[in-house]
């Protein structure tokens, strides 16, 4: 059955839709749009919608991906048009493509992601000071964070090897951090952890919390274009 890959943004109120709820949200939107969704067979059928990589609740996504399987061919343009009209506020369809027969599963493609964090400064910081803070952060040989394993025990984990790049800039009283991290089913680095560790070590005068965005997801093959097409 035909599979369609969607690139979408998850912003505004939709950033708070959890990964599990997102499946239901897409399912209902697809049904409202009159799309013939394919379901798994068996005891408890669920719609064949697969996501690239879970996004932490509260983090916005600017270029997320999901594969949608239908029971029959539907022109890409009408999926784009109809589904765009039935998604709730904050979910925005950017592009839809029909996948080829042997396309690999989305989940297995993801290797890296870029992120952006924005926060308000309590007092002014110079670009030079920001650069030095990042340099010092990246210069560390290890950056240890606490994580809970499956059994619920606290484990110490070094996230430094999964941080590939990091930069910062200033826009009036807003500080903007951008970074590229290891992502995927193995060795996933969470942006919240990085931001948390950076905030603690850099001691920049931040007011409140960083607001987080995932800007793109990409595979090792498409490092330059940074897409999952």
């Amino acid at each position: 059955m035909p599979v369609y890959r969607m690139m979408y943004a998850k912003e505004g109120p939709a950033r708070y839709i959890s990964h599990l709820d997102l499946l239901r949200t897409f399912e209902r939107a697809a049904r409202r749009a009159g799309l013939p969704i394919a379901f798994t067979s068996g005891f408890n059928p669920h719609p064949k919608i697969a996501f690239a990589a879970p996004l932490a609740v509260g983090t916005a996504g600017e270029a997320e991906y999901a594969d949608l399987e239908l029971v029959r061919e539907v022109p890409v343009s009408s999926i784009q048009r109809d589904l765009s009209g039935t998604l709730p506020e904050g979910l925005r369809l950017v592009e839809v493509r029909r996948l080829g027969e042997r396309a690999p599963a989305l989940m297995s493609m993801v290797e890296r992601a870029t992120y952006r964090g924005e926060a308000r400064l309590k007092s002014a910081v110079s670009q030079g000071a920001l650069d030095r803070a990042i340099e010092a952060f990246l210069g560390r040989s290890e950056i240890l964070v606490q994580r809970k394993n499956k059994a619920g025990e606290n484990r110490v984990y070094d996230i430094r090897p999964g941080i590939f790049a990091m930069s910062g800039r200033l826009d009036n009283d807003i500080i903007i951090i951008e970074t590229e991290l290891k992502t995927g089913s193995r060795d996933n680095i969470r942006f919240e952890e990085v931001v948390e560790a950076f905030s603690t070590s850099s001691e920049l005068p931040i007011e409140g919390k960083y607001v987080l965005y995932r800007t793109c997801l990409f595979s090792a093959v498409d490092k330059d274009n940074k897409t999952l097409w």
Partner: protein
Amino acid sequence: MDVLDQILPLVKKPARYAGGEWNAVHKEWSDVDLRVAFAFPDVYEVGMSYLGLQIFYEIVNRRVDTLMERVFAPWPDMEEKMREYNLPLFSLESRRPVGDFDVVAFTLQYEMSFTNVLNMLDLSGIPLKSTERDEKCPLVIAGGPCAFNPEPMAAFIDLFAIGEGEELISELLDSVRKGKQRALPRRDFLLEASRLPGVYAPGLYRVEYRTDGAVSKVKPVQEGVPARVTKRIVRDFDQAPFPRRPLVPSTEVVHDRIMLEVLRGCTRGCRFCQAGMLNRPVREKKPSTVLEQAAALVESTGYDEISLTSLSTSDYTPVSKVIKSLLDQHAQRGVGVSLPSLRVDNFSVELAKEVQRVRRSSLTFAPEAGTQRLRDVINKGVTEEDLLETTAAAFREGWRAIKLYFMIGLPTETDEDLDGIVRLAKEVLDLGRKARVPRNKLRVTVSVSSFVPKAHTPFQWEPQDTLAELKRKQDYLAVRLKERGLVFNYHDAGLSFMEAVFARGDRRLETVLIHALELGCKFDGWSEYFNLERWLEAFRLSGLEPAWYAGRRYDYEGPLPWDHINSGVSRRYLAEEHRRALSGVTTVDCRTGDCPGCGLCPDLEAKPSLAGGV
């Protein structure tokens, strides 16, 4: 940078506060004359499952001159953040402070949500007491079943709406709008609004007490204020306003499906049941209306399940026909039908069989009492044969789990009746074994709640068992219901005790509620938050005795704190029903055409309306 976007990632289930759901209505604040906040005093997932919210949302937002937005009780983790960041309670649609609205409308579905109402007012910066609110404060109104004994909340609510609100809400909003245009002082407005049928303005009534503390009289303080407020009903239920584009939450809620009300009212006349008395007369929707509305809802929501809701859906006359047509029209699109409540009879098993393609979930029946004698007392028209035949049929049809609901502490109950519960449960279990349900799959759950005497029911005069007695009965059952395949559940008796206090409470309880709020009582319907000790402390601080309220037997002649609220069912009839109960005489269902004379139809100039046809 929005402070909310900084807080929300830190709390559990932030989608509760985010808004932006499908079919949410965003109207321009300045385009309308009146802004109403619909306030549900429990968490989002519960409030969004309340059909009344969807109905009012539709009615108020359809008007050009008014808008309605929603607000729910923030879960304690969110409340903590809001207080830390000085964030007032805000609506989901425009994220405006609740204090900016013209009207805040609460629904009182449950006595134990009263402190949540107070807490929400507090989080909104609105003075708790009606008398302390000035012209700038929103008008605070409340409706729902608990408004039928509004007295415990009388100090906090400016106006109560009694009965069905579909028509009343618009009349009330018209009145508010006119009052606002004429810059009517608050008190004058309340006086004017109190003349609308179904509106109760508690501030315009004075309560007198006897020396023993009992209410002796509730009477208007002013000319023109009605001595009794009669509930409102929608006469043409078939054509009543109906939400064709209901909100579809983006996070899972309690009833996460289409809720299509097919029938209002239940006339079986269970004597403990308040909903059955308050929602008379019985009114059914035409099958054609149901089918047309269902089609619109499937289209506008994208849900995969249509739940036919009512107090007792197997009583809906054309139910089989309607289910069949719904399945014919929607099943191939993967949309199923479900029934929330089942009667104890084979017909209901047939219905369940029809709607459930895969028989995994359990079936629930409510015999309520363990012996025929006690079932006659409560007028539950279920016989032992009914129950055994029905459950046998269910096992035959492939169900493996059966849930049985019972109530303990019912008037005249003895340990023999408890033994009856045990015996029935074991017999049902036995039927499962005989039907060769695999041992490890066979499950009979016995769920036991405690009787709470409610206003406007034939048992309104009855005392509740003492807390100690209820606990003894629970233990009595627990030791006897130990057997492989039996599961025994019971509700916290302390919670039922508090419910009983407020269900028949009076105005003096206002101090208890204020103390309880200060002591941190909230979300008491949630077992993790309910704390009896804190409530008892609130009573001590107020100098009141909870057992005096819960365990009191009222006399037929004496006044009741809710006498000035007219549910339509006459007091004479309730007393008669009570007498019949005590002598074990049952009463017929008026949907059969035999009217036992509850008084509602003549009093409210209404009549039962059935859709006809099977």
